[in-house]
């Protein structure tokens, strides 16, 4: 079967659960309990959103969220926000290293937390020059969207580990 791409307003989405939606085409086709997931969680936040059913089978791909009806776009974005928890680091309070474990006390858009990683090389990675991704020892993710948006002290603290 040819892959079903959605890139216009011929479809509407109805919120079903925190991460689930129903999808209705104006020609009458209907799909229930679909979970929107990013095909490119790192690089394409609003593009190529796959819609999986409860068996994990792909039913359609949204090419670009911008092309959806505003209400549908909002629903999909809300679902994605529920699914993907990648807190955005806004400030670095303190970095300590003890017995090889790096603890980074940070403020994020989701509140204050401590990122713990046992391996700087694997746990902290800079991509595209100014974006920094963190992966802690429990496989939780965090990111600094743009190093330049951090205050000077935070930048100085993190730069030592990049």
């Amino acid at each position, binding site marked *: 079967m040819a892959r079903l791409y959605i890139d216009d307003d011929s479809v509407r989405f109805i919120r079903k659960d925190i991460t689930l939606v129903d999808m209705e085409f104006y020609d009458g086709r209907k799909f229930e309990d679909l979970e929107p997931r990013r095909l490119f969680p790192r690089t394409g936040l609003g593009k190529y959103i796959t819609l999986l059913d409860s068996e994990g089978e792909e039913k359609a791909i949204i090419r670009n969220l911008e092309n959806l009806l505003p209400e549908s776009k909002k629903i999909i974005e809300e679902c994605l926000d529920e*699914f993907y928890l990648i807190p955005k680091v806004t400030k670095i309070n303190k970095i300590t290293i003890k*017995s090889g474990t790096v603890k980074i006390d940070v403020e994020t858009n989701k509140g204050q937390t401590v990122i713990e990683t046992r391996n700087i090389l694997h746990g902290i990675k800079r991509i595209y020059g100014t974006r920094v991704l963190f992966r802690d020892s429990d496989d939780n*993710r965090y990111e600094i969207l743009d190093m330049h948006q951090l205050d000077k002290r935070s930048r100085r603290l993190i730069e030592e580990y990049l």
Partner: protein
Amino acid sequence: MGRESGQKLAEKECNCTEKNEDGGKKVKPKGEKELLINRKISDKDMKKITKAVEGEIKFIIVGDLDLKSKYARSILVVTDKKIYAFDDAFDGEVFSKEYGEIKKAYVKRYYGNAMLILAEDEDKKKRTNFIRFSYKVASLYDAAAYFIENVASGKDMDEEMDAIEAAFEKQFSVCPKCGRTLIRPGAECMNCQSKNKMFKKMMKYVSPYKVPILIGLLLSCVTTVVALVPPYMTKQLVDEVFPNKDERMLVIILVALVASYIVQYGVGFFRSYILRIAGEKVVTDLRKDIYAKAQHLPMTFYDRTSTGSVINRILTDAAKVQDFVMRITQEVVIQFFQMIGIIVIMLTMHWKLTLLSLIPVPIVVIGAKIFGEKISPYYRRIWRRWSAATSVLTDTLPGIRVIKAFTNEEGSTKEFGSYTDELLKTVTSASKITIMFPHIVSFIVTCGSLLIWGIGGFEVINESGSVSPGLLISFISYASMFYGPVSFFANLNDTYQNTLTSAERLLDIIDAEPENDFGKGNKIDRLKGKFEFRNVNFSFDRTKKTLNNVNLTIEPGDIVGIVGTTGAGKSTIINLLMRYYDHYDGEILVDGINIRDIDMESYRSQIGYVQQEPMMFHDSVFNNIAYGCDNPHIEQVINAAEIANAHEFIARLPDGYDTVLGERGIGVSGGERQRLSIARAILKNPSVLFFDEATASVDSETESQIQEAIERLISGRTTIMIAHRLSTLRKANKIIVVDKGEIIEMGSPEELMALKGKYYKLIQIQTMSDQIRKTKEEERFE
């Protein structure tokens, strides 16, 4: 027990506690069963909980996210009556569910967070998003979900508590020092076990060569003392010989100078040679040790670390440490003794001038400290960039065929170029500091010399008598000699910081936790081949569960086929049986013994493992078959090749068994490589055999040859085979169907066919596709 008992428990909670990594407590009320809680909560909160809940509290999980996925504390309280969620997002509102309302309880994993979901029907249509949490507590919630579902389905609560206790025990099994999870409670932390100072660790490599190093150091003392002679002779020449026109003395001094130079350079050569050899030996030992350690690192290390990075450490970083060891053993000692010797001589010559010459030293020392702090992050960054560039090389060069096939030579060059450009950028930034610092040091030191010239010069001109021209010239010579070691030690910091980064990376490997071998020494003679999986859960990382509550039994002599779609978890079962990964929940037993309790080497030596893409080494066909066997007889190897249907094609090769294969077996076809790997397994004479899609990438004829070889090999041995082509499982007496990490069907092929489930469907699909394939192959042949 109802609300009252909970209250009672809270009142007694503070009597006896045990700290865990989060500063949490295992609460042990006196005379009562220990309350399971993963993190400390205040007495006030505990009282609030006990007031709100009904029934006896079985366990509490304190999480870190609220339902709106903000960082906040959320608490799951499970009692014998109900399940409660305390979530700050809803202003103290408490959600609760009774067991009777629940049909399904499961953890839904999102990205970076997860949710405990309680459903009121089997189809999970009527469900409640009960509590959200990050992966930090995911394993506890997994156990909680099983508990809730099992208790809701009527299973005995006390029996189900065993699994909960095991999950909490694992959570508590953390090293108090570094917080790493231990493989079992009370186990020694592999990270902290050897966490001594870097110097001490490096000294381990130096100590075997202490005799030549000590001889070298003694010779260094000799050369240092001799090197101090010439300036003194200069003073004699200027102050005594020239004014008195003493020719005899001039000759004596010249002879003495020649003698001192002969001793200085002759002994210097011998010293350098001894120390060089000792230094080389130290680094060779270090390199061997790192490679040996790399062999015993778990697969999880290699899953996360690029080969390029490991190669970089073994070669480049070890070389940097080697350079530093050389400098330490050869130059540092000489410079140090020279510095002390010069100060003593200078003090005896003129103490005031000596004090003057010491003025730049504190400035240089402080400068070196600041420099060290500034440069250290740069070296770390350079290391990372360098490692990334090396990784591109190790990744792309072995795949040069693919690069050429896709005509991506330019793209590949660009990629490497961008990494090296990044490296260049970092090196350029670092260079500003590394070049500026020695120049600043030289400037300060030169100013120090000017100070001596100035003060000493005035003394000479004013003829005060305390400084003669000869003494001043001689003193300046000593001062220059003194500033040499000062500059050396100041600049040594640069090399030291650079080496420190490399040493850190080397210790990353040396200190990395090796594969856990807690059963070391517990060898087994021969495996009978009975395997059991008991409630095995596994995930490579916490984002996705690869195996979900797997239970299975394989009897000795069974030929078991594991089938399922790609990514279902088939190979993971074999990976766990091979003990490539040990961090699973549950138990895997062989002949009734937990596989973790068996000596790793003894266990693996009894397993023959044939992989989908067999790994061949750049060596002869003979050595590739005999890999891992000590001196096998030639005929044993030939026999093994014969059984594996490999002998015929080997005999046809111009160099026969002496044919040297290219890297990763280049030079023979995929099917031939596979037969060589089967021959390798045959030679090992294993008790059990694992085949991971051994015939997946070969044509029908080769497949039948390999199949024939496999059938000869497996007779009488417990065999586990993963196969996409179900025709390869015709000898199997048991089939396990895996789907999304769970076993969905298990039984004899006939039973599963009668069941008309997934296996039946797979057979139907494959029969059709086999027919199509056969027709196409026949067409092609014609």
